[in-house]
């Protein structure tokens, strides 16, 4: 297989908590494998505290990984040390931040950030070309070039978020890391930004990592979905496959929580739990406290992502069910009937 645009292998980031002598570490991201191909929108889905923003910051080199490696076009990121290399990477991979209200310097006009990116990353442009290019990226995100002369406070949230994308686009990136770009926006404006993201992929050939907690919007734009829970990957695969038949109980929970106006009486999960803070974790599945299907094995062994069809699932119960479904004859009475959780029907429900 050809080398993907970006590939993270065993990506891990821990934070030490408390003072210098503290021995506690927070496991923000643990052993995450992630690939992003060219012209692909990958949605990274999870609740707050699941580590998804840390992933974006690792990929943007705001943090360095504790262990593991990120390869961009086959080049390991840790080898990019010179200023030239770093500038190159920042020109290839841009980040758009969550909060459009605090992401801009309030005393500069909007043009400032866009023009500065152009000056840094594309020094070959003359000032006049720079201005033209700034106008072009403005139009690419659906704004009029006049916006460049405005101040941030003169713009609405949706406009600012688009400027965030325009700033990112100015450097002609191959990959945009968008950290909850629509969660601060009104519902009516969200669709505009989502459509713009799809347009960037289709017209400019840009890949996106779309970080969100909203499965519905992930489904709307993304080609592939990666679901994270407590710093680990729990399920990954093509959007429609994952959402049509979620295998991991956490994905099922997220899906049932996504309110849908067209289904008034959809069943509602009674779950009220929250993702745990992963401080000094021991072995075992991190979802087991909230999981309706948890078995003994879940406490003893951390599940690793295992392929089931086109998806990867990190769940003992789902993997066992899939294996039994694949060869029903080979099933010894290993799972007694007393364990209803291992019934494949109850999982795929």
């Amino acid at each position: 297989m050809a080398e993907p645009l970006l590939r993270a292998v065993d990506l891990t980031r821990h934070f030490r908590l408390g003072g210098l002598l503290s021995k506690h570490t927070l496991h923000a991201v643990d052993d995450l494998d992630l690939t992003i191909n060219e012209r692909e929108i990958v949605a990274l889905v999870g609740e707050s505290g699941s580590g998804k923003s840390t992933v974006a910051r690792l990929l943007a080199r705001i943090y360095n990984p504790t262990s593991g490696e990120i390869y961009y076009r086959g080049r390991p990121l840790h080898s990019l040390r010179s200023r030239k290399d770093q500038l190159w990477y920042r020109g290839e991979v841009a980040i758009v931040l969550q909060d459009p209200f605090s992401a801009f310097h309030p005393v500069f006009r909007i043009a400032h950030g866009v023009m500065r990116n152009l000056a840094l990353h594309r020094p070959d442009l003359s000032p006049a070309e720079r201005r033209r290019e700034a106008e072009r990226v403005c139009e690419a995100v659906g704004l009029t070039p006049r916006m460049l002369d405005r101040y941030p406070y003169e713009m609405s949230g949706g406009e600012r978020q688009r400027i965030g994308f325009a700033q990112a686009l100015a450097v002609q990136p191959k990959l945009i890391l968008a950290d909850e770009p629509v969660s601060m926006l009104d519902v009516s404006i969200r669709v505009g930004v989502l459509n713009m993201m799809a347009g960037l992929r289709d017209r400019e050939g840009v890949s996106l990592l779309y970080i969100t907690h909203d499965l519905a919007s992930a489904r709307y734009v993304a080609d592939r979905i990666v679901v994270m829970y407590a710093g680990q990957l729990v399920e990954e695969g093509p959007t429609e496959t994952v959402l049509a038949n979620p295998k991991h109980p956490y994905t099922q929970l997220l899906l049932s929580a996504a309110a849908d106006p067209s289904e008034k009486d959809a069943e509602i999960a009674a779950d009220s739990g929250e993702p745990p803070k992963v401080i000094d974790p021991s072995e075992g599945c991190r979802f087991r406290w909230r999981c309706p299907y948890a078995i003994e094995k879940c406490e003893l062994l951390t599940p690793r992502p295992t392929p089931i069809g086109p998806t990867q699932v990190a769940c003992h119960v789902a993997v066992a069910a899939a294996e039994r479904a694949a060869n029903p004859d080979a099933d010894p009475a290993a799972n007694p009937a007393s364990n209803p959780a291992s019934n494949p029907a109850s999982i795929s429900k």
Partner: protein
Amino acid sequence: MADPLLEVDDLVVEYATDAGEVRAVNGVNFTLGAGEFLGIVGESGCGKTTLLFAVAQLLSPPGEVVGGKVVFRGQDMVRLDSGELQSMRWRDYSLVMQSAMNALNPMKSIGAQFTDTLQAHEKVSKDDIRKRSIEVMELVGIDPAHLQSYPHQLSGGMRQRAMIAMALLFTPQLVIMDEPTSALDVVAQQSLMTKIKDLQRSLGFAVIFVTHDMSVVSRYSDRVLVMYAGQVAEAARTDAVFERPLHPYTRGLMNAFPSVRGPRRELAGIPGSPPDLARPPSGCRFHPRCPAVMPVCLEREPELYPVDGGEVRCLLYTEHAEGAV
């Protein structure tokens, strides 16, 4: 029908700004029966929070109610003085704010804040305070041990629940909620909404619930009020709105969020952004963004017309529509 619990009559709220008077709420009417769940939906800047503040009489200058009435249990709240209002707040009606982190006092434990609220209204013994605090914490599904916790020690979902617990200390007849779930994740949002609905059913208070997310109100509210640019654009029963939205703006809102199920289709959203209320557009305030705009919309300001048991502010439902489509 018995007298409604709350009656808002032609309410007008203005903010004095350098650019002149801005009418954030412009002639809003609605009634709320006891135990009813009313959803108010609109984009940011449509005046929904101002409306809530006017109902709760929490407006501070430059905002001011310049016309209309807010009749709560037969009393016009606009005319009450601050002492009378103080005795009603929390006891007769309470308010749950959008961001519990900012609404709770960071320097005091949850329990201490409950105590303040209870003592503000009546002489109560320590035992009673304790008992009541534990009761409401259990109602909203938080371990009463958290009465000793400070707001920063709770997660976002728990803080919102604690706010709701506080709002229920006196079992008020009306609880006003300003986007209580919008800062939360989907799962937490879902469980909080289910909790609110359960409590509302069992305790029988009325709810005014403000949100910008149509999908949140769809499951829980009895009636929906859609606001646009300070006015009511559409008011009807929730199921009617979802089955057949009348106002083009309501249709736009409904068409603005993707679905996790069903066919994947392209959504259009609503182009443009809400108008500057200091200079509202001529005629219908929605006409610059309206997909069904007619020439008459630029000149004639629509009123609320009764259609199919609901009300809608759109000229499509008048004689002007004929021949113009």
